[in-house]
């Protein structure tokens, strides 16, 4: 579990193919930081707050960025977002919402809860790569700077 202390990017995605494509898109953007993929909201929260299966993880170590799918089993993406953003310690972690459409209600809700940005997962993979690049904060992951 030692590697978990080094996780800098947390991907929360239930679809393994989407997760794989996300990893590939990161790689194509030369973002080779330590990445962890979890598959539902509960797992994501357990990791962020170092509890449950991740109880042994040092609480002080936190991911630098979270890519969060909107539609998740067990605990929904919006609920995960709410919990992270309502905690004074974790709310500083940038959260990027991954979504299949521009469903207005979901986006409006996400912004109310304090999301930092969002990406509509495109069918065209190249556009996904572009979208990751255009987020504008990958420098954060490149230069290893502490927040």
């Amino acid at each position: 579990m030692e590697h978990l202390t080094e996780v800098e990017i947390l991907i929360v995605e239930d679809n393994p193919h989407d997760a794989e494509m996300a990893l590939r898109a990161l790689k194509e953007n030369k973002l080779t930081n330590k990445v962890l993929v979890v598959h539902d909201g509960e797992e994501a929260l357990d990791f962020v707050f170092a509890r449950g299966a991740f109880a042994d993880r040092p609480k002080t170590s936190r991911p630098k960025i979270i890519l969060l799918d909107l539609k998740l089993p067990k605990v929904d993406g919006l609920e995960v977002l709410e919990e992270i953003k309502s905690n004074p310690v974790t709310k500083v972690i940038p959260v990027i919402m991954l979504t299949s459409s521009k469903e207005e209600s979901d986006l409006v809700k996400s912004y109310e809860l304090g999301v930092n940005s969002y990406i509509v997962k495109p069918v065209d993979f190249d556009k996904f790569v572009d979208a990751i690049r255009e987020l504008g904060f990958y420098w954060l992951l490149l230069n290893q700077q502490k927040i």
Partner: protein
Amino acid sequence: MKYNQLNYFSVLVCLLLVTIGNTQADIPVVDDPVGPVILLGSEADYPPYCSLDEAGQPTGFSVELFAAVADAANLELEIKIGPWLALKEYLAKGIVDALPIVAKTPEREIRYDFTIPYLQLQTAIFVRKGTNDIHTLDDLKEKEILVMKGDINEELAMQLELSNFVSTTTTFDEAFLKLAAGEADAVIAHRIIGLQIIDRLGLKGIAMLDGKLIQTRHEFCFAVTKGNDALLASLNEGLAIVMADGTYSEIYKKWFGPVIKEELSRADILRIALWLFLPLGAILSFFWIIALRREVKRRTRHLNEEIEEHKQTWEELQTQQVQLKRREAQIHLLLNSTAEGIYGIDREGNCTFINKSALEVLGFEDRSQVIGKNMHQLIHHTKPDGSPYGAGECEIHRAFRTGEGMHNDDDVLWRADGTSFPAEYYSYPIRENDETTGVVVTFWNITEQKKAKEELLRLKRNLEIEVAQRTAELEEKVRKLDKSQQAMLYMVEDLNEVTAKMKEERRKLELSNQELDAFTYSVSHDLRAPLRAINGYSDFLLKDYGDKLDEEGKRFLDVIRNNATKMDRLITDMLNLSRISRAEMRMTTVDLGRVAETIFREVATEEEQSHFEFEMEPLPAAFCDYALIKQVWINLISNALKYSGKSAVKKIQIGSRAEENELVFFVKDFGAGFNPKYKDKLFGVFQRLHRDDEFKGTGVGLAIVQRIIHRHGGRVWAEAELDQGATFYFSLLKN
């Protein structure tokens, strides 16, 4: 008045007779046999003047004299017995009218009125025999002296300050008995009274001191209540009579004869007589002359006053007569100038007066035809219905019976020519000394009023009929209205039902919308994930293993990726269509021309903008949802650009026209156009009239346009010929 005159006359005569010594004078007899009753107050123990006899009846010189005087003055007499002190008070207050013996002093004259004196008494000092130390009045200073309380001698003792030790007793007897018993040194009393008591009580040890020690004499009179002049005059008159006719002498002799005889010498008697009668006569004469003079003055004044009064009365009568004449003339004028007929009747119903109007109204030419005639028979003989009056039925005469005024406005009076007229009249009784002596009747012809009243009644009846008719009409209308209202109520009920149904439908619709939302959400997520995988992994295959594939293999992978992309576009369009159908409308006034121009600039590429001719007429503003109408322009202008891409003429025209209820807008191009027989299929979802390799598209754009315009209550349609361009129309409601 006459009575008093006579009295004074007789007194005068008597006085003259007394003066010349003739005792045989005639006494004039007074007319009135019974005079006023006098209440005389007398004492029980002042002998010999006032006392009671053995039978308890009042007696004594003064009482008897007063009785004789009263008899002579023709006064009835009653006597009230009481103690001296009380009687004095009674007299002052008028409870008794007179006292028979009161010494006259200036002090007493203030409280009472006195007759002429009929008696003079000399005060004397009585001591026990053997008393020889009293020679002057000064010797009495240290002696114990007794006087009767209230007696004039008590006052005398005080005035002369006879002694330092003066005591009073309630009676003379008590004083003399106390003296005899040695309880006092002297008694001061009138000489005659003292002698009388000594004699009566047999007090041999009491003697009278020399009379010269006290020279005081008191004059005694009858006293009356202050101001009772009539009684005073009567008593003076009576006194004069009894003195003149010898009654006085007789009574005097009866009471004082023996005592004086025993004690006095003949010379003394003569002296006393001279002392008594001569001054008495002179005083009497003097007083009576004064009284007479005063009376004559008073009479004269009275007579003058009466003459003056008569004169005034006569003048007043004269004035009143003038006024009466004037008033009579006024009344006459008033009577004859009023429009109302006025006449008066006496107790028998005969006419006593009648005014001009009455004569005219009744059709008489002269008063003589009416005056003295029975008015009921003359003008009121028959009832309005033609029947004769029974006894006591006459309304006018009712004032006689009741003594009160009455009014009638439903009667007729009869004219001289035998015709009648409806009349209103008032009948008022004339009252003298609580007795009805006649009646005044005021009347007038009310033919016109009657007519007016009948006309009013007729109008009222007509009005009532009309009101009844109108009321009936109104009731009918109200009934109809009620019916309509009932119908309305039913309609409202129906409407409520419909509304309820609509609400139910709306609820169902909302439910379906929610389901649609859920479906859309699901489609967007679930359908896209496999597409992303297909596309993504095709891409990985091409990138990672491209060198191992030949050209045909690479082409297949492209086909897979293109179809995946196309399917993604279809899903996107379908979601857009769904969103547009459900989006909430925010209606505002939108400048459509400006929107269209902006959209052209946004949608057309720079190349298109340089090649295309964009013609736009000024467009009116319309009331619509800005975002949705913008989408309409996007789709229509995009289509025009797209389908003109292969044409020689690259031109887009935008314009509008106003129709009755709507504004019609159009977008015209000169591109590919379409076969008009398929124009109904144009607006269906996923319906296409061109192959995808000719013009790319999903067939959703026009469906979206139709959906938006329909939501605005407008219409969409198109006109075209194949290869001749197309015109797309849409309309929006005015306002």
